[in-house]
């Protein structure tokens, strides 16, 4: 499922020939995302970020899938965060841990996710995997 969602995003972005339209779409996604309330945007949900901040919240649903909510103080990062959340949301911890995340590179917005320290996305993905690890351990102990 994660792979399918990534393919959909890649196809969606393939329509945009100009950088402007790509970014306009990202900005739109950022504006549309529900995000977190100001009360939730506290340091304990802050994943990192040198320039823009990213907050991430995760809950394990009754059906065994994970529900992520996230936010950022920069609108482009917010749009990228929305994409990341949409890919990982409502998947099981096992599926999340098994996933190969490549769509960021493929849509040509982030050349190398692991090097994008400044916008906090790499830290966000790392935190998602950490949550998945913890949730998986919880499932096994239940």
């Amino acid at each position: 499922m994660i792979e399918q969602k990534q393919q959909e995003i890649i196809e969606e972005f393939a329509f945009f020939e100009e950088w402007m339209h790509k970014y306009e779409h990202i900005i739109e996604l950022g504006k549309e995302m529900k995000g977190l309330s100001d009360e939730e945007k506290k340091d304990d949900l802050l994943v990192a970020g040198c320039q823009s901040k990213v907050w991430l919240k995760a809950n394990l649903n009754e059906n065994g899938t994970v529900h992520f909510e996230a936010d950022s103080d920069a609108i482009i990062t917010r749009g990228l965060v929305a994409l990341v959340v949409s890919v990982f949301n409502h998947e099981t911890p096992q599926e999340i841990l098994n996933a190969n995340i490549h769509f960021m590179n493929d849509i040509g917005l982030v050349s190398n996710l692991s090097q994008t320290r400044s916008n906090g996305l790499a830290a966000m993905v790392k935190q998602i995997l950490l949550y998945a690890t913890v949730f998986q351990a919880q499932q096994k102990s239940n």
Partner: protein
Amino acid sequence: MDNVTLQHKMKELRNQFPTLNQTVNGRPLVYLDNAATTQKPQRVIDSITEYYTKWNANIHRGAHFLANASTEKFESTRTALAEMLHANFREEIIFTQGSTDSVNMLSTILENEVEEGDEIWVTEMEHHANFVPWQVLAEKKKAVFRYIPMTPSGEWDIDYAKKELGSKAKIVAFNYVSNALGTINPVEELVAIAKNAGAYVVIDGAQAVAHFDINVQALNCDFFLFSAHKMYGPTGLGILWGRKELLEKLPPYRYGGEMIRKVSVRGTTFNDLPFKYEAGTPNIEAVIAFNESISFCKEVGRADMHAHEYFLLKTATEQLKAIDGMTIYADLENKVGVLSFNMEGIHSADIGTLLDQQGIAVRTGHHCTQPLWEKLGTTGSVRASFACYNTPEDVELFIEALKKSVNMLR
């Protein structure tokens, strides 16, 4: 020199910088991140290549032709620097790895000079590199870490220093020019206050050396430091000037080769200046190539460079002011070509991302000056900084791209 002649002279310079002649994201590169690092003229690049092609040898030791030739070239940069800074002695010039390294060296070798209850002073405007090492030293020695506040206009509150900085002050460290705002600080005034208090005076000149001539004697400080790469030179090289009598008195920083006179199992004696502070094989090619940067700046003339950059700054500032929701920080007369700003309701990182898409290189974020932004009630800015090779066309492209970015983000 009238402005037209000056523009013409600077435009010619641009051809000497090969990195500027390229496209980024399909657009001509407009490089406005010069406060972070300047591009290098061809003669500096050639000098590095020439060193490895012709002269490579370890300096100060081998008794052979290449070692002698590279040593001579290496040491002639030291002589050129002594001349550039108006130092009394060429051995007062110490090569380090950069400004951060220089401050760390100073905060280490001055450690024994600081006692419990002494005061170590910085300003609220400092780069973290000239802030954190002093803060850590103060903690270590149970000294009091104090700072001269910054006003909302982006200047030092010098009256605070006049009132509060007294005989308890042991070290006073401050920048000549603010990297985040471009403010040229009244360093002479603060040196006088600090000297009167009997403190060691450290000037971080990293943002000053590419824009105006420096005379360490006239400044009357004890230590002056800067990085080669912000003065059209190679990275990984810092210059630290210190008063000879102090450098002779203070302990070594790093221990190893080059800095020793005699080593035996019973003990070690240390070499004279400047070698006492230059342990290990230095960044030889950077030191040699930096001589070309020194000549470049001298030949062009820093007064002309500054006048040109100031013209670009004023042109850009006026145009930015016409944009709705614009906040310009430290919109002062006495500035170098640094333009720091924010747009209402827009994150600086978003502007940086969209400018980059249009080939415009700026810096966004806190610029390693978090206390400064805390004072100004925000977390960072967009910073466009000009160098001698920037042109009015660069300013035009920047303003146009900025307007486009803002339209997309609003």
